[in-house]
């Protein structure tokens, strides 16, 4: 065990810092808070699309990948350094994560040779993807999904509905999970397809979420024709891909979650000082507990990093997902407590930062629900890590 980084890793960090110093767009030069910007702006700002392409072209989009996929064959430790630096400077890679974070690794692992042409544009952001997973009756119980695909010559015909589909209103492709065999146990009859969002029969209805923004949607499929060549992986082999998808989504999230928590600690200290709570022992202890949580989670993240870095579906991800999402929520709640009667005020003049704390508190529920709820994470910990029997 040692705290020091290797010479090669320090060199990697310096190269990254130099690239960022020279190239970061002015909109992100002092950090960019996507959640704040999206409320009034575009869902995917054009400067951010250009930045994503710039990162790709310079091998800084997914450093662990080879240059043709927007990387530089970095080691897993270097990937973590990259995520840390980006998170510490609050520099986004893109707003639309499904393409580079979920679709690309799923296609690399399960896609046919022909389907590999979709990978680079997904990572570069040239193609915007959404993921068709949740349905009205299939949330945590994803295996219960009902949207079905029936074979018809060289095509499959899709019918059904997806919900909470992020970026569906701007996506040109959907990585969609559907039922292809209703007569076998539920997890064994699911397949994954690449669906063109321009196909006739697709109806996208944006859903406003709790803060009033709309970055996800309902998607209805009525007799949508999908070429059989768009099947990803084996027929009825989709469940294994869903497990991989979620693992990819979770793998690097802890770095960002912990960095955000550490930044929130500093904001809380500043807030307490400005709102006359710097000598309030109750508030001080709660901020200290948040700092302690961030520090111990960073240590736990490093400790489990060997398996995180390999992008495997290591169940240890669940510890980080559960703890960092819940701690983030509690930290924003603490900000509201410090603000007292102004905790829920979103007024641009009278409110603290136009209601940043309460808005962040609401948005933080996305982290304890999406990608497997906190309750599902506890099930995974209990059953896959602790070896308890299924209920």
């Amino acid at each position, binding site marked *: 065990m*040692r705290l020091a980084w290797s010479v090669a890793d320090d060199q990697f960090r310096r190269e990254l810092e130099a690239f960022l110093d020279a190239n970061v767009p002015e909109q992100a030069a002092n950090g960019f808070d996507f959640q704040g910007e999206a409320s009034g702006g575009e869902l995917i700002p054009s400067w951010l699309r250009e930045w994503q392409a710039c990162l790709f072209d310079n091998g800084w989009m997914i450093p662990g990948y080879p240059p043709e996929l927007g990387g530089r064959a970095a080691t897993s430790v270097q990937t973590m350094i990259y995520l840390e630096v980006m998170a510490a400077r609050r520099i986004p890679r893109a707003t639309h994560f499904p393409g580079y974070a979920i679709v690309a690794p799923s296609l690399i692992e399960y896609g046919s040779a022909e389907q590999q042409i979709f990978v680079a544009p997904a990572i570069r952001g040239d193609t915007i993807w959404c993921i068709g997973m949740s349905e009205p009756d299939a949330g945590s119980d994803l295996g219960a999904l009902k949207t079905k695909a029936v074979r018809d010559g060289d095509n499959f015909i899709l019918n059904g509905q997806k919900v909470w589909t992020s970026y569906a209103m701007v996506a040109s492709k959907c990585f969609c999970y559907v039922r292809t065999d209703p007569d076998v146990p539920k997890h064994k009859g699911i397949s994954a397809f690449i669906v063109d969002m321009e196909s006739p029969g697709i109806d996208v209805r944006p859903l406003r979420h709790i803060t009033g923004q709309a970055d996800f949607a309902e998607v209805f499929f009525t007799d949508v024709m999908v070429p059989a060549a768009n099947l990803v992986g084996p027929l009825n082999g989709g469940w294994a891909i869903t497990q991989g998808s979620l693992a990819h989504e979770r793998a690097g999230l802890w770095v960002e979650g912990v960095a955000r928590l550490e930044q929130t*600690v500093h904001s809380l200290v500043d807030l307490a000082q400005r709102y006359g709570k710097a000598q309030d022992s109750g508030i*001080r202890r709660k901020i200290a507990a948040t*700092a302690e949580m961030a520090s*111990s989670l960073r*240590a*736990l993240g490093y400790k489990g990093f060997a398996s995180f870095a390999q992008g495997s579906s290591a169940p240890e991800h669940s510890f980080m997902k559960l703890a960092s999402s819940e701690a983030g929520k509690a930290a924003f709640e603490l900000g509201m407590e410090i603000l007292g009667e102004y905790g829920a005020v979103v007024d641009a003049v009278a409110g603290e930062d136009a209601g940043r704390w309460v808005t962040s508190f609401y948005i933080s529920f996305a982290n304890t629900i999406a990608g497997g709820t906190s309750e599902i994470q*506890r099930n995974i910990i209990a059953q896959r890590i602790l070896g*308890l*029997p299924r209920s």
Partner: protein
Amino acid sequence: MDFTLSPDQALLVETAHRLLADRCSASTLRAHIDDRSIATQVQQSLADYAPVAVADCTDACLFLDELGYASAPGPFFATLIAVPLLQAIDHDILNAVLTGEVAATVGFGGTLIPDADLVDYIVLVSPSGAIVVETRDTVELERVNSVDHSRRWFRYAKVHSYLDAESTPAGHRSRLDAATLGAWRDRSHACAAADLVGTARRMLSMTLMYAKQREQFAKPIGSFQAIQHKLADMALGLERATAAVHFAAMTVDAKTDDRAFACHSAKAAANDAAVRILKDAIQIHGGVGFTWEHDLQMYLRRATMGATQFGTTTWHLDQIAELLFAPPPR
């Protein structure tokens, strides 16, 4: 940045685990409740490990995690805490301590003194850094009964005035500078946290085994979600505290600026994990967890005491708040 165990560290953990399982089983621990001589036997069996006290703090914490897992009685922990103080003043008993021939303990300020009945020397330190090493029989101690069967605790009521009044003859007394005292306190917090985390790990493993075996409503109780979610939260607390201890120990070894913060965090995380685990361990065991006959009580008693020594959670959080609100100048 590397949190993986080196081959030597893995070997240390494995051999310590096997030795303690052999020499300090639950039945040994139970016999110790009425027979203090067993603590001396356990201490003798650990003599080969005495140099752990001068090893890296990471190695010391890995060993202490196993010591806590076994809830070993005897002054091994107390001696390990005393060694850096003896080193700092270059005391001539140091060599005998490191061969395991001599044991020592520490009284810091007015805090309780662990296992003073089984040591040869007591190191008394004041908050301002005055330090005296006394043979045990020259110090007046009184036993303070606690719930902990594995370690005995004592107090020396006059410790403050004795040291600060400078009544000790010059030449007999030394003084630690603030940096040395601070480094010792940080390391002590990490070490106390490591021992506590080990005991918490023991309780979690006992509770997991019980939840898999105990059946109600014709199913193992561990198949019920209410029990699973408790165990998941217990495991998260333990993993978090263990990682915090390893990080703290590495900051001690590397003498980094965030050392005090990391060590306060480690003990706070260990306290929280231990208390959560001991409460839910009793609850999940149900009636049997509430009995004297069940071995759980011996470990949860050590953990109950451990969470109140070397700083409660509230105290450590107050120290962290001091660092956050008024960071020391670099």
